[in-house]
C-alpha cells in the first residue's frame, strides 16, 4: 500500500464527511457525498478490493448522487437546522 496516496485520500474522506454534514445547502451536501464516495472508492482500489471499488463508484458516486439531487429537486434546497 502506498502510504502518501493513502494519507491524502483518508484526509479527503474526513474533510468531505465533515463538510457534508455541516453545509446548509442540500444540493452541496449531495455533491459532497458523491466526492466522499469517490474517495472511498479510491481507498478500496488502493487496498486491492477492486470489485468493491467498482460498486462504490457506480452506486455510491453515480446513481445515489442522482437520487439525492432528484430528492432535493422535488423537496427543498435549504435545511432548517
Amino acid at each position, binding site marked *: 500500500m502506498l502510504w502518501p496516496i493513502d494519507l491524502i485520500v483518508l484526509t479527503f474522506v474526513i474533510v468531505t464527511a465533515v463538510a457534508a454534514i455541516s453545509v446548509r445547502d442540500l444540493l452541496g451536501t449531495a455533491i459532497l457525498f458523491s466526492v466522499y464516495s469517490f474517495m472511498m472508492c479510491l481507498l478500496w482500489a488502493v487496498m486491492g478490493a477492486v*470489485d468493491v*471499488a467498482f460498486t462504490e463508484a457506480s452506486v455510491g458516486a*453515480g446513481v445515489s448522487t442522482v437520487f439525492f439531487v*432528484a430528492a432535493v429537486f422535488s423537496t427543498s434546497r435549504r435545511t432548517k437546522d
Partner: protein
Amino acid sequence: MKLLGFIIVCLTGIFLLYGTSDLPDWGDPNSPASLHLSNHYIEKAVAETEVPNLVTAVLADYRGFDTMFETAVVFTAGLACFLLLRDFKPKQDRYYRHVPTGVVLHFKDKARQLRVGTEFESVDKDWVPSDMVIKTVCRILIPFIQIYALYVVAHGDFSPGGGFQGGVIFGSSFILLAISYNLKTLMKRVSEKFLGIFSAVGVLIYVGIGVIAMIMGGNFLDYSTLAPLVPVDPGHIRALGMLGVEIGVGIAVMAAMAIIYINIVSQGRHDEGL
C-alpha cells in the same frame, strides 16, 4: 442540545476507534477470517468452478443464497418507491410550445388538449431551451454506456464487475436520457409496465435457476446439476450458471434503478422531472 450531540458523537468516535485496535491487521494471515473458509475458496475455487475472479465465484456460487436475497432487497426498494410515491392523478396544468414561434401556451382545465406533433410540443413547467451540445453528446454516449454495462455483466467472472454494477450502469443510461432530454422522452421508450415486469423477471430468473437445479436432483442453486440441460463441457457448467444468475441480477437492478429515479424526480406523476 447541540453541544450534547457533539459530545456524544466524539465519545462514540473514540470508542469505535478504540474498538478497531482489537481488529486483526490488514491482510493478516492468522486472523480468524483467513484461517478456515477463505483457504478453501482461494485454493479450490478456480478448479471447482472455472471462474478466475474469486469474488464472483464466492458471491454468485458459494454464497449464492445471500446474493439472491440482495437482489430481492433491490426489487423491494423499487416496489416500495412505486407504492409510496406513485400518483395516478394527472396534473391539470399542461404546457404546450408552438414550435415555429416559440410561444408557450398554458392550459388550466383538463378538457382542452392540443395534438402534439410538428406544430406543438408538450413541455415541462420549468422549461429551458434544450441545448444542442448536451443533447448530441448524450445521444452519442448512451449506446456506449449500455454496451459497457452489458460487457460488465458478461465479463463479471473474468474481471471486476457483475450483475449489480452492470445493472446500475445500464439504469443510469436511462437516467442520463431523462436528464438530457426530458422525462417524457424516457417514458416513451421504456414504459412503466416494462420496468415493473423486468424488475420482477430478474429476480425470477435467479430463483428459477435455483429451482431448476432442485428439479434436476441437486440442492437449491447447485449449478453443477444443470449439466445435462446445456450442451457444454460439464466442468464449465458452474461458470455458466453464475453468468445466468448475474444476468438476472443485472435485469432486476437496471429496472429498479429506473423505477426509483422516475418516481422520486416526478413525485410519482411520471410527467416532468429534472
